[in-house]
């Protein structure tokens, strides 16, 4: 029982990190949507492509982090 504790602790920390990263991607994507629309209306097309690219990358980061979180979450809860 005691041998599980450090592993549980680090997993909890990893999961917390996943939550933080996902919320950071939301914040980043909100900013990217705002900047993309602003650049589009200002006909700054090169900027639109850059901001949109960053938005897509952040979306994929969110997906990858989510997959990682799901792996941690369901593997630890399965022992109960």
């Amino acid at each position: 029982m005691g041998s599980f504790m450090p592993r549980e602790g680090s997993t909890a920390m990893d999961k917390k990190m996943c939550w933080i990263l996902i919320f950071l991607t939301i914040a980043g994507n909100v900013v990217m949507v705002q900047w993309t629309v602003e650049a589009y209306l200002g006909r700054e097309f090169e900027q639109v492509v850059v901001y949109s690219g960053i938005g897509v990358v952040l979306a994929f980061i969110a997906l990858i982090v989510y997959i990682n979180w799901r792996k941690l979450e369901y593997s630890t809860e399965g022992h109960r």
Partner: protein
Amino acid sequence: MTNECKKGRNIKDSTSDMVNLTKNVDQTDDLKYNRRAFLKTAVGASMALGLSTVPFSVRAMMGIAEDEGERLEVARMDELPEGNSMTFNYPTESDAAILVHTVNGELVAYNSACTHLMCPVFYEKESDILLCPCHKGYFDVSNGQPVAGPPQRELPLIELEVENGIIYATGRKYRHG
């Protein structure tokens, strides 16, 4: 002691408020609205936001190839005395524009759709300013920058040339100044 007895004891027979509080617990809601579901929704929101920018970049990539710098005759100088303005369309028929001969003798032209909610802007000779009457947005007539009210972006500038007393529109700039 069967399972049926236990159920009966907790739900039907007891008159205790504390026991009956369990009636408030909805297992379906517990399974639907929990920490995991919240995080999944957050990931969905993040992905939806990020991917919602894609149509803009697709349109932008198509727009990069567009060339709209066509030369168009707008008016004769003698038709437009100082302190007056006139409307025209540039670069297409659906892009309303305003040509202003300011009280200082300057010739300027902008697309007249307000950058707030697209209402047309008008030239106010008395205060030498462009006014959007819908929400009282004001633009500096000399550079098209917003000076008061809700608009945040400048009016698109139409570049002008005067040749033999005729004013021509030669191009458009969205971000300027």
